[in-house]
């Protein structure tokens, strides 16, 4: 039985819905605002790095505001882009999408405001040492590099804030379930919950690292930490965090892009299977980030590598399902042939175009990820610029460009303003695609040539002429992305300040129908306990021995 959704409503009713969900829309809007402010500063830092690689040194000129130069800028770039931008955007987006999909407001709006309040307070707290060059420890904050305690406490509060959204979604789900005892959970709401459940489980790692080591250590309460244990707890969260970024983009690809492409979702049950696999397999694989660590057994590194190959499978399912959905759309719009239907897709629509381009680059990012996780092959690429090239395709494009694409339809709904210019938005999507392709391709190549990541390479005495020759293209790619980001912000500012109200069509959320609906899948896909049990068992099996070995042998004496 179909659930009631905004798509079944008339234009006038859709507009009226914005009153019913006024609080949820405001929360989503504020989260997106913080997210895009963070991305603006973080992105600007990125351009400065790419210029510095080409010996165009802007750091002396901005020394009064950025005393730590390249490395402080790099810490800001990482923290603001992959921790702040992603987390705030995701919390806003899931608040919007889960409530509209359940077709009911948050169970507790007060808790909704608390979520935003705790996260923002934590962000401001962490921002103080970051901006004062007292937290130049990168977004991975490996001890014994030490930051001011405010940095650790602030980031912990941001994570605690996100947990409150899960509590709110569970309360909302239970209220919905009481009224719909036999219905399948609506896909977008269900996917939002899977994302938050996966995230809450995996953040146990970084929470333990913060509470038992970094916070008491930075406050001087304990004499030392254990660096390998800290790295292990960090990557316990740090690998699944990539799915915390990615799944909200997948939510858009599954629930809205098929409709935007003029078609239907190919298979709802297949989409649910892939999300359950992400829930179960995202966490017990983090050791593949620690292939080069001493103090951890080769066998467990290999086991985690094998499980990482396992989590590649749901991404391949997603690829199949989303491309099949696009094909339904392309053919419905008159496309023909084996592949020529691609040209019949709505390439004049910026939201669609941004996300389709994000998918194309993600295919390369996914393949590269498999290489990174490949046990001894990781030795070729670990800590080289190959890795930076890799995650600029995944979080920097699959996620970021998709989030920008979503913003092109979401911002008009939550602000009631018409998007200023579709043409500008189209130009933005293509320039991001071109700039990132250049940037990422050459970062990958330079990594294979041995260039390290996270290094002020322009000032390094060992900088090689053959690296410099390719760094030119890295710089050009970064400048093109800077132009793209400028077009995005210009469009958003002109949208927010415009006097043109959103049209009736703007208020329509592009919900997709499914060619094969949830009723075609088994009921167990809608149950929680079996999947949670499997997740916990796999985590205990894959992490238990390594954590026990590290904790039982550590003197915790590294100052």
């Amino acid at each position, binding site marked *: 039985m179909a659930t009631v959704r905004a798509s079944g409503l008339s234009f006038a009713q859709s507009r009226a819905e914005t009153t019913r969900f006024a609080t949820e829309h405001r929360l989503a809007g504020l989260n997106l605002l913080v997210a895009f402010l963070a991305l603006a500063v973080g992105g600007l830092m990125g351009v400065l790095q790419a210029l510095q690689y080409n010996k165009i040194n802007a750091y002396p000129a901005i020394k009064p505001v950025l005393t730590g130069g390249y490395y402080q800028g790099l810490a800001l770039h990482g923290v603001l882009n992959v921790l702040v931008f992603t987390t705030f955007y995701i919390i806003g987006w899931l608040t919007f999408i889960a409530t509209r999909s359940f077709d009911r407001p948050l169970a507790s709006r007060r808790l909704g405001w608390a979520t935003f309040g705790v996260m923002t307070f934590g962000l401001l707290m962490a921002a103080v040492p970051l901006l004062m060059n007292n937290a130049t420890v990168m977004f991975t904050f490996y001890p014994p590099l030490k930051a001011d305690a405010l940095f650790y406490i602030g980031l912990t509060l941001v994570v605690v804030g996100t947990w409150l959204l899960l509590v709110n979604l569970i309360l909302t789900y239970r209220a919905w379930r009481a009224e719909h005892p036999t219905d399948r959970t609506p896909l977008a709401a269900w996917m939002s919950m899977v994302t938050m459940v996966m995230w809450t489980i995996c953040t146990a790692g970084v929470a333990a690292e913060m509470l038992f080591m970094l916070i008491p250590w930075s406050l001087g309460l304990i004499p030392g930490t254990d660096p390998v244990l800290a790295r292990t707890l960090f990557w316990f969260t740090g690998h699944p965090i990539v799915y915390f970024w990615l799944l909200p983009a997948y939510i858009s690809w599954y629930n809205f892009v098929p409709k935007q492409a003029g078609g239907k979702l190919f298979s709802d049950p297949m989409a649910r299977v892939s999300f359950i696999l992400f829930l179960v397999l995202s966490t017990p694989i983090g050791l593949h980030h620690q292939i080069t660590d001493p103090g951890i057994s080769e066998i467990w590194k290999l086991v985690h590598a094998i499980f990482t190959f396992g989590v590649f499978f749901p991404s391949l399912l997603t690829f199949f399902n989303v491309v099949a959905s696009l094909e339904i759309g392309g053919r419905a719009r008159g496309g023909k042939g084996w592949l020529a239907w691609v040209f019949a897709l709505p390439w004049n629509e910026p939201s669609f175009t941004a996300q389709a381009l994000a998918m194309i680059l993600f295919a390369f990012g996914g393949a590269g990820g498999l290489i990174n996780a490949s046990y*001894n092959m990781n030795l070729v690429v670990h800590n080289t610029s190959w890795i930076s090239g890799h995650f600029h395709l995944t979080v920097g494009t699959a996620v970021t460009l998709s989030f920008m694409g979503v913003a092109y339809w979401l911002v008009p709904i939550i602000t009631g303003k018409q998007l200023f210019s579709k043409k500008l938005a189209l130009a933005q999507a293509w320039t991001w695609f071109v700039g990132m392709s250049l940037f990422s391709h050459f970062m990958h190549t330079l990594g294979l040539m*041995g260039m390290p990541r996270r290094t002020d390479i322009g000032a390094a005495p060992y900088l090689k002429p053959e690296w410099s020759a390719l760094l030119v293209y890295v710089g050009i790619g970064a400048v093109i992305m800077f132009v793209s980001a400028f077009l995005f912000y210009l469009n958003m500012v002109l949208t927010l300040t415009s006097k043109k109200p959103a049209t009736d069509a703007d208020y329509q959320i592009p919900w997709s129908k499914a060619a094969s609906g949830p009723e075609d899948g088994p009921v167990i896909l809608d149950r929680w306990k079996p999947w949670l049990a499997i997740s916990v068992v796999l985590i205990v099996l894959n992490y238990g021995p390594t954590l026990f070995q590290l904790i039982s042998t550590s003197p915790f004496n590294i100052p």
Partner: protein
Amino acid sequence: MMKGNKYAAYLFEVAWILPSVAIPISFLVAIVLTAFVVGIGVPGIGGRIDPKAISTTAPFDKPGVRELAPGRYEVVIIGERFLFTPKQIEVPVGSKVTFIMTSRDVIHGFKIEDSPINVLLVPGQISRVTATFAKPGEYLILCHEYCGPAHHIMAGKIIVK
């Protein structure tokens, strides 16, 4: 549209899922073969050390190159902000070299170009990795883990001749 075509859709799904399973499995077989038959291993557990007592703990009391047997060498290296000790080492062509390393302060990286040596130096831990140097030449050694404001000057060299 799909309803009339269920069988075709099913075939497409199978045609996608089979390689989706077979390709990663064949990659894994290749990895396991190179790791355990060819012998390109990754760092493992090398033991712990008190970072305050490095200078008095063997073998770190005498950093440098030691010949164990003809063609078999051991190299002891200490990493600290922002240098490796020793900074430059020399081994004969074709020798099999085991590196035994640790860090005095924060985490450092240790990557030798054009070789499978890529490992972290962590205070409190001993890193132990082995490689054979078959081609003569000068190879750059880099710290590739951010370790502080002068991280980009931390480098060394291995000369194979």
